[in-house]
């Protein structure tokens, strides 16, 4: 078979992404049709920056969802004779198959690895960001609301973590040795408690007066929460549904740990500002409990800056995961995550630049999309 030309490669790559294009068209058409009724999301489509960001992010989300349809080869299979082959090289022994973006140093398909890598990034980065937000919100609200000694000590702790150079923290926390000492487990045990505390306080403060509802909500939260907790943090899930690879847990915990102090500072600052508002005073006069005011009065009114920061932070977490991969501390040695692939590719950059190039573009476009999205959201929420 002949090697594909540049034009053929482009058309084939674009054709491979067909499910994504269909998904994008459907989502964007529906969103534009109903944009009057969609609140902030609808308004976002009014700004070109926000729309561009949304398209980029949706592209990668849909790619992650349809990764199995898009990938042309298995990302881990090595095919002999394909080592470092240029883009568009026909696969030896397989009629009608090409390595669209070439082969890497271990004779694997660069294109399929990039596509599959999106799944890893888009599974870990948002989840880690959500956990960081849970920790930051649960600690930041009382810190800003009560002030005093609690605030001083929590702020000191947060500043302590923030004063750590990120890269050093990663080198210390994400090593294979540290797993045997149980430090990541211990950290996970603490950090993963916060979502449970958050939801319990959320329901308790709302339904305190309605014991029936409260009982249902609380029991569901506690059962689900501790079920997931036992599986994710300690790998002791009796039913074996929730499970996290020890290496993944290590990375996940480190990323949450690095991000939560910044969220804490943002939430604390917002709370200090918002607690002087009249509606908070009204709630206090009504005799609402402090946690009700924090979670149901302050937090909803702080949502604007928090949503913007959430988008930015997913992007930042993606960069952090890439950094980890770049230093060979990725999820698993073989995994196709973008940072690891860049790291493998960079070693042969002078001779074979093509394996390193696709993941860099992928990572950059995803982060760019998230940053644009955050910018669009900020612009729109400032207009209110």
């Amino acid at each position: 078979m002949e090697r594909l030309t540049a034009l053929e490669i482009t058309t084939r790559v674009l054709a491979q992404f067909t499910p994504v294009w269909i998904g994008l068209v459907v989502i964007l058409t529906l969103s534009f049709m109903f944009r009057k009724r969609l609140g902030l999301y609808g308004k976002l489509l009014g700004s070109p920056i926000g729309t561009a960001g949304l398209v980029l992010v949706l592209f990668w989300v849909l790619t992650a969802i349809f990764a199995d349809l898009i990938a042309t080869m298995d990302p881990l299979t090595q095919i002999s004779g394909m080592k470092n082959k240029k883009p568009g090289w026909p696969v030896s022994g397989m009629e009608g198959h090409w390595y669209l973006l070439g082969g890497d140093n271990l004779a694997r398909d660069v294109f399929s690895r990039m596509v599959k890598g999106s799944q890893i990034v888009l599974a870990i980065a948002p989840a880690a960001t959500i956990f960081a937000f849970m920790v930051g919100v649960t600690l930041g609200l009382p810190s800003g609301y009560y002030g005093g000694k609690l605030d001083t000590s929590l702020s000191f702790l947060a500043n302590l973590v923030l004063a750590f150079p990120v890269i050093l923290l990663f080198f210390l926390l994400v090593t294979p040795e540290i797993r045997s000492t149980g430090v990541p487990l211990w950290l996970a045990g603490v950090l993963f408690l916060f979502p449970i505390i958050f939801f319990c306080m959320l329901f308790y403060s709302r339904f305190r007066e309605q014991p029936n509802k409260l009982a249902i909500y609380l029991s569901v939260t506690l059962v689900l929460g501790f079920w997931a907790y036992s599986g994710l943090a300690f790998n002791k899930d009796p039913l074996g549904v929730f499970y996290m690879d020890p290496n993944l847990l290590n990375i996940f915990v480190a990323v949450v740990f690095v991000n939560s102090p910044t969220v804490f500072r943002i939430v604390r600052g917002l709370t200090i500002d918002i607690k002087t508002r009249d509606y908070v005073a009204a709630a206090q006069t009504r005799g609402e409990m402090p946690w009700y005011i924090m979670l149901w009065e302050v937090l909803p009114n702080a949502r604007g800056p928090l949503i913007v920061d959430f988008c930015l932070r997913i992007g930042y977490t993606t960069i952090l995961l890439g950094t980890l991969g770049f230093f060979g501390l990725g999820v698993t040695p073989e995994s196709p995550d973008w940072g690891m692939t860049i790291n493998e590719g960079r070693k042969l950059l002078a001779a074979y630049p093509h394996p390193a190039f696709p993941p860099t573009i992928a990572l950059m476009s995803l982060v760019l999309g998230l940053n644009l999205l955050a910018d669009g959201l900020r612009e729109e929420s400032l207009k209110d």
Partner: protein
Amino acid sequence: MISFLIRRSGVMVLTALCLTFIVFFLTNLEPNLEKLTKSEGNMRMTDVQVQSWLEKNGYRQPLIKRYGEWLGVSPGWTNTDDEGKTTGRCIRRAEDPENPAKYCGLLQGEWGFSLVFKNDISTIISEKLALTGKLMMWVLIVMVPAALIIGVIAGMREGTKTDRTLSGFSILSTSTPEYVSGVILIIIFSSKFGGLRWFKGTAATAMENITFENFTLPVVTLALYGVGYIARMTRASMAEVMTEQYIRTARLKGLSFPAVVLKHALRNALIAPFTVIMLQIPWLLTGVVIVETLFNYKGFGWTLVAAVGNNDIELLLACSVVAVMVVLVTQLISDIGYVFLNPRIRVN
């Protein structure tokens, strides 16, 4: 002001103590010590031998005591074996084995000995810091003016085409971490794939002799990520200043637009970016590690990676102390500078 400085420095010292203790704890975990023992002794040591080696070399004292010894506030350990030979923390380093110093830690200037580089850590660190200092200097020379110019031009006429273009560039550059921009720049400017072979893809030769050819790519890679962020902050600050009353007054009294920008707006618009630039320096630290690894420039960041990779505990500790101090000192400078630059803030 004096009491503010004292309080701020007090918090800084406390933070430094806490952080170094955490680093000390994390680098002296059991598996690391075992690895150290085996590389110091031999790979086939039994568990019992490992334990006795650790015992004999003072690694089995309470952690807080060992931290004190390392810091130099607690006397170094000594140990006399069955044959009457005395060993101790300070003895193996002291020039006169008969009268070893009582304390030998960080405060006495004893940074320890690197097992991998076979040299005194203070020598290694100062050498490597000088190399990284050169890199940082060039990065700051490129990054700060570029970012400020972009930010000021974008912010002085908000919403124009120039503003949109420059803001787009800023967002793009903040979305491109060093390991991405570095790889792309190498592909474009130094490989046959990009066609242009203007620069070298490695900075190994720059350690002795910095040339335009071997140092451009690392400096640009490192500067690029920070430029966008500082430019965005400068733009926001500039845009805010341009809406102030005194700018309108200056315009109305007939000053030309450049004069308004240069004489009235700039001074006030540059307060916020100052803080951002100072706080950007700790961020550069991560970038330095990535760029030095990518371009094989054997400076401080490269040493940090090497220390981690080789389980060189004392070197890693020393690197961590330097890194933590860099962060804390820049935070202090940014706080003081902010007060100094902004007369509206009073500290008491």
